[in-house]
């Protein structure tokens, strides 16, 4: 299965461990990701706060570039996924917007018909590869590992369609297929604070504390996520949560692709596991090293 790949800026920087784990598992899953040549930033949430049409226009350049390949455009980042999809919606639903975006693209020698299907890599893993195939690749049993799936916000909203917005199950099913145990907890789609970690730090730290506490209370050994910003907030800022709220969280927060790699028996260093802010320890270490 071949896809056009839109990495997004984060997986080339603070989330480069996400990219490492994707590279390590994609061939075994039969997923071929051909990087979109010369892609640019999607605009994320920050651009939209200052300019609307401009934000859609830079995002649309990517869709226009992707169109000549006639393949689905796949991204690992929740924000890119949402923004590119939203650009599609506005392009297709608002004639005035479509007209102006069309003119802007034309100025750059491009055109777009509105037909590129933008998908998240979790959607591809669950719905195209399938859990049956994934289960067949498991070499290391993760029996006893309690994993809290954290979906965050933008992956299932607004109505992108591949999972339920309030109670998504894709990663729950994945965890089962890998032989680990899914932790049920109520905050799996509650926001981590996203970019508020920069502008309203205390509030974002409070949201992270609630998430970490809920996962820990329900017995999680680790949290898996699918978004670069969620991972950074919960992992890199976990020590700041601890110092502000006098808590003692020590919960590794890893990408779902890293968990797949671990179960497939890929060496942890190839998956970026050694470059987490909160290192693997305790029960999780025992299980993944002993298995």
């Amino acid at each position, binding site marked *: 299965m071949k896809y056009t790949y839109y990495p997004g800026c984060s997986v080339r920087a603070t989330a480069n461990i996400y990219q490492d784990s994707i590279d390590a598992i994609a061939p075994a899953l039969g997923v071929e990701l051909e990087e979109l040549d010369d892609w640019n*930033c999607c605009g994320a949430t920050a651009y939209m706060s200052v300019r609307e049409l401009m934000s859609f226009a830079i995002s649309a350049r990517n869709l226009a570039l992707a169109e000549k390949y006639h393949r689905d455009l796949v991204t690992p980042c929740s924000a890119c996924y949402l923004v590119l999809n939203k650009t599609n919606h506005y392009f297709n639903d608002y004639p005035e917007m479509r007209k102006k975006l069309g003119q802007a693209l034309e100025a750059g020698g491009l055109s777009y018909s509105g037909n590129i299907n933008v998908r998240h890599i979790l959607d591809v893993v669950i719905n195209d590869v399938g859990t049956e195939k994934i289960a067949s690749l498991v070499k290391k049993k993760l029996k006893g590992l309690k994993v809290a799936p954290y979906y965050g916000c933008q992956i299932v909203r607004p109505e992108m369609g591949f999972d339920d917005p309030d109670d998504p199950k894709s990663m729950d099913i994945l965890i089962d297929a890998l032989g680990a145990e899914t932790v049920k907890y109520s905050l799996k789609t509650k926001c981590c604070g996203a970019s508020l970690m920069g502008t309203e730090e205390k509030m974002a730290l409070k949201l992270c504390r609630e998430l970490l506490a809920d996962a820990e209370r329900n017995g999680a050994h680790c949290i898996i996520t699918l978004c670069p910003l969620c991972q950074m907030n919960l992992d890199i800022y976990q*020590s700041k949560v601890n110092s502000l709220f006098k808590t003692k969280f020590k919960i590794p927060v890893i990408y779902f692709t890293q968990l797949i790699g671990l179960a497939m028996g890929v060496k942890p260093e190839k998956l970026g596991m050694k470059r987490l802010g909160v290192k693997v320890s305790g029960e999780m270490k025992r299980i993944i090293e002993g298995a």
Partner: protein
Amino acid sequence: MLEKEVCYEATLDLDFLDEIYSLPGGKEIKRCIQCGTCSGSCPQACQMDHAPRKIFSLIRAGFRDEVLRSNTVWLCSSCYSCAVRCPKEIKITDVMYALKRLAIKEGKAKRGKKATILSKNFVGLVNKYGRNHETELMTRYILMAEPFNALSFIPQGMKLLVNGRLPVLPHKIKNLDQLRKIMTKVEELGEI
């Protein structure tokens, strides 16, 4: 809290609703039934001057200044919980973006000063490289928005750095010229 307890019609901006209404995705706002699902879904509602339901009520009543000066839009993290649950399918998050832009334009974004610095630097980097350069964004943001608090960012920065997650050099796209032509055209056409 509302600054005025009694407000005369003359001091209200009754065109405010029409202004929001004319935005793409803004027309559904007239259908709001004040059910409060948005406020109940918002992870930040308890920290806001006015939770989302009240913001819609204020927009419709013409309390332009209260809306644009409130902290509400700056605490919105774009999680879309409200938008996905709204029974009237109002694009609430997108209305929040529109309010952010209006507040910046009219110089009423006092609470959003830091968010504005973050956004404008982000835009500057994307315009310069075609991509975001997270290391430069964080550095610029900290120096401009939190110069006296810069030391407190060091532990997190170090965690990223020692783990090889903070690249020094930016990625620049090849056809920056094409991106710039698209952007110049948008400037010509004007925002919607």
